[in-house]
């Protein structure tokens, strides 16, 4: 494919992509994200492929990313020309023959039907699949999807992530083209500011302001970095975003680089996500081939490169200064701020770091405008956020919700409540930096400020539901064990404080706790929070402090009655 150098070539690629996305022949897609693969999607794909080859059928088979409903994987999409896209769920390899039969009869296997999609708003584009199948429910009538609004996940599960043409078909790289033609970087920064987009990595800093700092930073080369070192246990939003739609990340970064005046970009991605790494490699390669990355992008004289760097299993590298140290070839230990990366970042150069999901919001804001973006979400936190809803809940998966939605809608409307016969006790948000929110407080809206008020944080978007079988003391112990072993050891409050906190929590879960322990733990937690150098230490006590605050009686039960009613603490388990 020649490089795209004018709008004619761009539109030709778009047409070619549409020919694959909504072809004139039947198209079958298999959700091939890590979650799909873990449930047998590869076997399904091979079975379908083999049957298509054997029968010499005129069917286009494609792998796509995750559509979010991980609990229904493997998901298979079947679309006949002019008809809606029908999504089949929990498909197994031996269903292949039946699915191909349905392609010829146009009658879908009833037991596999999940939902249909007649048209889809890709935000940057719109696709009409067709109408029909009145007996099949629309995708957004299904409880799991009903209240979701897909902006970040606009393409996930629908387009083939390994084919740049399908991304361009749904309006991809159009925002970049517009930005390069307009050549008004300051206007784009104003748009991001007006949209009040906030960093999706957890801290919630206004992205537009951050961009402004780097744009105004003086002199020489500047760097932009995508933080894809998603380390929170219980969270996998970034993994699925990258696996399902890698080009949206690249487009966000290229726009960002242009408006901030950076010539080099780096994506720092977890090595634990091999599929995401592969898809990114491929996406970068393709973007170069099509002239969207590298030198003279879209023939507009702009040069920008992206390097992929794999982390090596250190949670603390999600902290921006630690990430920079890691890129420079040091152990990932944080530095005090200021100086902020915007003044002195990678190799002392001005640097901007944003989370994966923040970059995904860039093209939609440029395309549809800040006014449109601010229609969703709350006044202080516009837009949506992707959460991984997991744990003891019926429906698990990735959900994208407007910010400000109350917690209970996540758990009862989307998640459809606890698993059979159990009651939800608490929700853990924000991973090891967050806290446990008791069921009585589920009216709390999910936004940066409201969650901080009750001692938790929104964080990167992990949401783990817990029921009566989960001991809250054990949960606190679990997170402190994690942060303790992930502490880089640089500052004393975090290194020593978490060690002491872990010992106390171990004692309590083993039945050797004392009343004094509880006060000590509380005091210790506040000290670690106040005195630690970086966000890891400053937030590590949150799980302890929130469980003491909201579940004090469970601690007392362990200490006074030597009882763990959930049965998690083995030394205290009641004999039946």
């Amino acid at each position: 494919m020649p490089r795209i150098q004018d709008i004619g070539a761009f539109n030709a690629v778009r047409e070619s992509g549409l020919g694959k996305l909504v072809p004139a022949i039947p198209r079958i897609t298999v959700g091939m994200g890590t979650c799909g693969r873990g449930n047998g999607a590869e076997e399904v794909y091979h079975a379908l492929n083999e049957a298509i080859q054997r029968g010499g059928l005129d069917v286009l088979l494609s792998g796509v990313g995750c559509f979010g409903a991980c609990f229904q994987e493997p998901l298979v999409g079947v679309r006949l020309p002019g008809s809606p896209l029908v999504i089949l769920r929990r498909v197994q390899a031996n269903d292949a023959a039946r699915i191909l039969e349905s392609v010829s009869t146009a009658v879908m296997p009833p037991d596999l039907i999940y939902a249909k999609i007649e048209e889809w708003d890709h935000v940057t584009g719109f696709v009409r699949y067709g109408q029909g199948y009145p007996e099949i429910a629309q995708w957004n009538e299904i409880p799991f999807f009903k209240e979701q609004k897909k902006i970040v996940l606009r393409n996930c599960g629908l387009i083939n992530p390994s084919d740049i043409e399908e991304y361009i078909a749904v309006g991809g790289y159009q925002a970049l083209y517009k930005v390069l033609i307009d050549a008004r970087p300051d206007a784009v920064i104003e748009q991001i500011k007006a949209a009040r987009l906030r960093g999706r990595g957890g801290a919630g800093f206004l992205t537009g302001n951050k961009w402004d700092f780097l744009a105004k930073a003086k002199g020489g080369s500047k760097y932009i970095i995508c933080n894809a070192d998603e380390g929170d246990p219980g969270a996998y939003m970034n993994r699925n975003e990258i696996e399902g739609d890698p080009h949206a990340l690249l487009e966000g970064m290229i726009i960002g680089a242009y408006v901030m005046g950076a010539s080099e970009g780096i994506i720092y991605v977890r090595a634990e996500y091999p599929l995401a790494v592969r898809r990114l490699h491929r996406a970068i390669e393709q973007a170069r081939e099509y002239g969207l990355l590298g030198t003279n992008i879209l023939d507009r004289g702009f040069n920008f490169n992206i390097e992929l760097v794999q982390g090596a299993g250190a949670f603390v590298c999600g902290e921006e200064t630690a990430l920079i140290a890691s890129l420079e070839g040091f152990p990932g230990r944080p530095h005090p701020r200021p100086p902020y990366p915007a003044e002195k970042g990678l190799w002392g150069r001005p640097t901007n770091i944003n989370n994966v999901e923040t970059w995904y919001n860039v093209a939609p804001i440029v395309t549809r405008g800040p006014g449109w973006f601010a229609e969703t979400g709350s006044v202080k936190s516009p837009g949506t956020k992707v959460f991984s809803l997991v744990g003891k809940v019926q429906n698990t998966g990735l959900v994208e919700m407007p910010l400000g939605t109350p917690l209970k809608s996540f758990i009862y409307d989307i998640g459809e409540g606890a698993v059979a016969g159990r009651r939800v006790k608490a929700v853990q948000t924000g991973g090891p930096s967050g806290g446990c929110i008791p069921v009585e407080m589920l009216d709390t809206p999910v936004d940066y400020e409201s969650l901080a008020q009750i001692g938790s944080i929104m964080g990167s978007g992990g949401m783990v539901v817990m029921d009566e079988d989960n001991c809250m003391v054990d949960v606190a112990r679990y997170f402190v064990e994690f942060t303790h072993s992930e502490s880089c050891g640089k500052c004393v409050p975090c290194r020593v404080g978490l060690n002491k906190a872990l010992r106390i929590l171990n004692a309590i879960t083993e039945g050797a706790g004392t009343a004094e322990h509880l006060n000590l733990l509380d005091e210790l937690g506040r000290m670690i929070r106040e005195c630690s150098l970086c966000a890891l230490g400053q937030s590590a006590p949150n799980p302890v402090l929130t469980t003491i605050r909201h579940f004090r009686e469970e601690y007392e039960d362990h200490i006074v009655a030597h009882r763990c009613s959930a049965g998690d603490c083995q030394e205290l388990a009641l004999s039946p």
Partner: protein
Amino acid sequence: MQSAAHEVAHEALDASEKLLIDQAIAKHMDRPGALLGILEAVQSANTHKFLSMGSLRYIARETGVPPARIYSAATFYALFNLDPQGDNVICVCRGTACHTRGSRDLLEKLCLDLGLHGHEVSESSEADKLALTTPDRRFTIRTVACFGQCALAPVVEVNHHILSHVNERTLQREVKALTQGRK
């Protein structure tokens, strides 16, 4: 640190190992994340998936980075191994979703079944960053902070293949298959 005899065994690098390291250095040098990239490349090319002292010294010499800094990076990041890994690597996810769905019990049972003393392990303070290899080097049991497979919890990775919704029985069956398959 390792015993002297052990270290000497790691020392000697043959020409092909040196060539591989030279290539990794040439590919990554002077780029962001160079050291991580070099160490990752060298480790993944190694049959037993580890970084020998000899290779660390060689990397230091060729890159001009002080050996202390290379050793410090190699020990800081959980992904790097300084000891040979087993033929089969079983990695138990210790993420929150897996934890709430019983991954600790799975880990302990697995260690017990393979004769690795599970209890001693879980009491040590580094319990969630574990890497144990059986004396015959057939199996290495590791943990990972989170695979990001939370909707399928609990998750165990056996030789880079993800198993979802694992229970003790399925895990035992898997280990048995590996044990027999090798004989």
